């Protein structure tokens, strides 16, 4: 497992916070996903060994929580809420527009490796539905026009980086 020294330090720090090592499974997975971008199988086995568990115990946790990814995603993660309020106010249209803008289907990585579009469950901003999170930033009332603006912005930022 090739983790950054900071990640390893934080892992060492977090484990003793729990009465039993097993309880540190979730925080460790979060730290690893933050570092690597997803949870490779190797990480499952690494966490198991570190917490004196069997790999299947960690694998169960990883597959239970939708926020843990077992495959790499694009550099930018577009998360469209599809729970009730957002769904009623056009979340599907929003999601489909993102998919068209980046030529990608939900759950997949765009050809240039830039974007992954996903549906997620309620982002706790139902009053301003439909809402979208791009990486850590929340965007409210994302109708088709706003979707196109946001997409253009992502493309601009990508161009600026290259």
């Amino acid at each position: 497992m090739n983790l950054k020294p900071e990640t390893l330090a934080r892992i060492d720090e977090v484990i003793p916070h729990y009465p039993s090592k097993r309880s540190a499974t979730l925080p460790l997975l979060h730290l690893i996903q933050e570092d690597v971008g997803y949870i490779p199988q190797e990480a499952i086995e690494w966490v198991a060994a570190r917490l004196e568990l069997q790999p299947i115990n960690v694998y169960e946790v990883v597959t239970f929580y939708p926020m843990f990814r077992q495959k790499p995603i694009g550099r930018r993660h577009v998360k469209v809420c599809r729970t009730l309020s957002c769904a009623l106010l056009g979340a599907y249209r929003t999601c489909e527009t993102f998919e068209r803008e980046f030529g990608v289907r939900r759950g997949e990585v765009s050809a240039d490796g830039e974007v992954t579009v996903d549906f997620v469950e309620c982002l706790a901003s139902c009053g301003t539905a439909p809402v979208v999170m791009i990486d850590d930033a929340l965007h409210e009332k994302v109708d088709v026009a706003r979707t196109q603006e946001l997409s253009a912005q992502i493309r601009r930022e990508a161009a600026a980086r290259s």
Partner: protein
Amino acid sequence: MTSPAKTELVTVNIDGKEIAVPKGTNVIEAARLVGVDVPHYCYHPKLSVVGNCRMCLVEMGMPAVDPATKAPVMDPATGCQKINWIPRPQIGCATNASPGLHIRTQTPQIRDCREGVMEFLLINHPLDCPICDQAGECKLQEQSTGYGRGYSRFVEQKNVKPKRTQLGPRVTLDDERCILCSRCIRFSKEIAKDDVLGFIDRGSYSTLTCYPGRKLENNYSLNTVDICPVGALTSTDFRFKMRVWFLKQTNSLDTESSVGANTVVWSREGVIYRITPRRNDAVNDTWMADSGRLLYKAVRAESRLTAKDSLAALLARAETILRLSPGLAAVVGSGQSSVEEQFLTRQLAHALNAPAYLVSRTAEGDGILVSADRNPNVRGALVTGLVSDLPQPYLDDLGEAIDRGDVRTVVSVGEDLMAAGLSATQLAKISVIQLGTQVCASSVAASVVIPTLTVFEKAGTMINQQFRLQRFAKAVAGPVGAFDDLEVLARLIAAAGGPAEPSDLAGVWTRLAAEIPALRGLSYAAVPETGVVLDASPWASLPFVEGESLHHRPALVAASA
């Protein structure tokens, strides 16, 4: 695990019947004692309790007491103490007996609960009983009879899941049939100590799986098939071979080691189809090793010995050989023979005035149900007086005696003399009378071969590592041209000029009960299904090879600990 403390008894009331049970016994077990069946899936008496299937719901009540004075509150209508019933049902598997506990299992509410749980369990179930191996011994099928709806209200699509995953070399999984009880997971973790199974994608798509890259391949994997209450886990060997309701069940023993796990042999019309464990809480609980389940393959093996000649003709040849070199014979007995056969082997050695040998078979024990002593009945040889010391792996003494010319004839009761260390040169110097079931180097070299029966084709007893005398019964008839071991031995004794010995089980037991101090007063019929522990003190100082295993601590270890 739910082994209740032996001491304190508490009285509980189940469906109106009072019964005293050890404190802590759960409601399912307590109800069993009064003949009340509480349907259940996830609960297993030898595994931890998780309470996830909800099939065992019962109504629960406690005697009412005045909150202030703690005085019993009486019910004027009945004159008895009033029972406060909890309005909601409780799970029986996780409810333990406490004084005055009242349980109702036959109320409309409980019926409703069971029907509700069944409907949920069947929602995603493929209902493929006609092609399912579990049919006939499926708890889901059984409970459907009592609590199923008969028609489905489910109009949505059923979940689609993997239909034939090879979890390992011996176990096949149909995930659509799995009711997510987690028995197999708990067994792997708690008993086999091989935690490879788990539920992934928990939620509507919960799927039982083995960790990617690992296999359910430990030597206990088939126990998961036994305890799976539905047809999700099936034995790759038994799959699609035979409907279970056609099979006859015969109680037998696992002869792969001195543990003597209790088994059931399942056969139809003289053919064995599978072997499963039989519960014995003092020996193997409800488990057995996978390796022991394959032993029946010896019955119809390519290498099976049968004779074209009659037994009388074979015995006549044996007699000629025995007469040729009187006083120069040796007998090699076997730790795989039954107690009765070992007794007659001893009598044969006496009649021939010949030394008796035994061959040891050892390998590493697994600490569970396969011990280091791979002979099932070395203790039988000690108890019957066939030998007085523990056997060696090789017959070096016998080899030297042959080289000296002191032994010219060897009667081998089922042992391969070559595998037991005699050289081809030594074999060439002697005449061998070989008894046995399989072709081996020594049957090839023998002057007379008398084919005998496998453990599945005869009845008898064996003495396991705990000095527990256990019975095995005859499951199928032997093939034409193989002869009953007791009859062969009794007639060999006669051929050797010895006294008349009985050749039937009851007869041999009359002799055993009279001759063998440890077996005094016993008879074959009187041995309980769970066996009887003999007085082992005469052999207490012998360095038996077994280590610790389930329900067995070697006496020497126990003493020094």
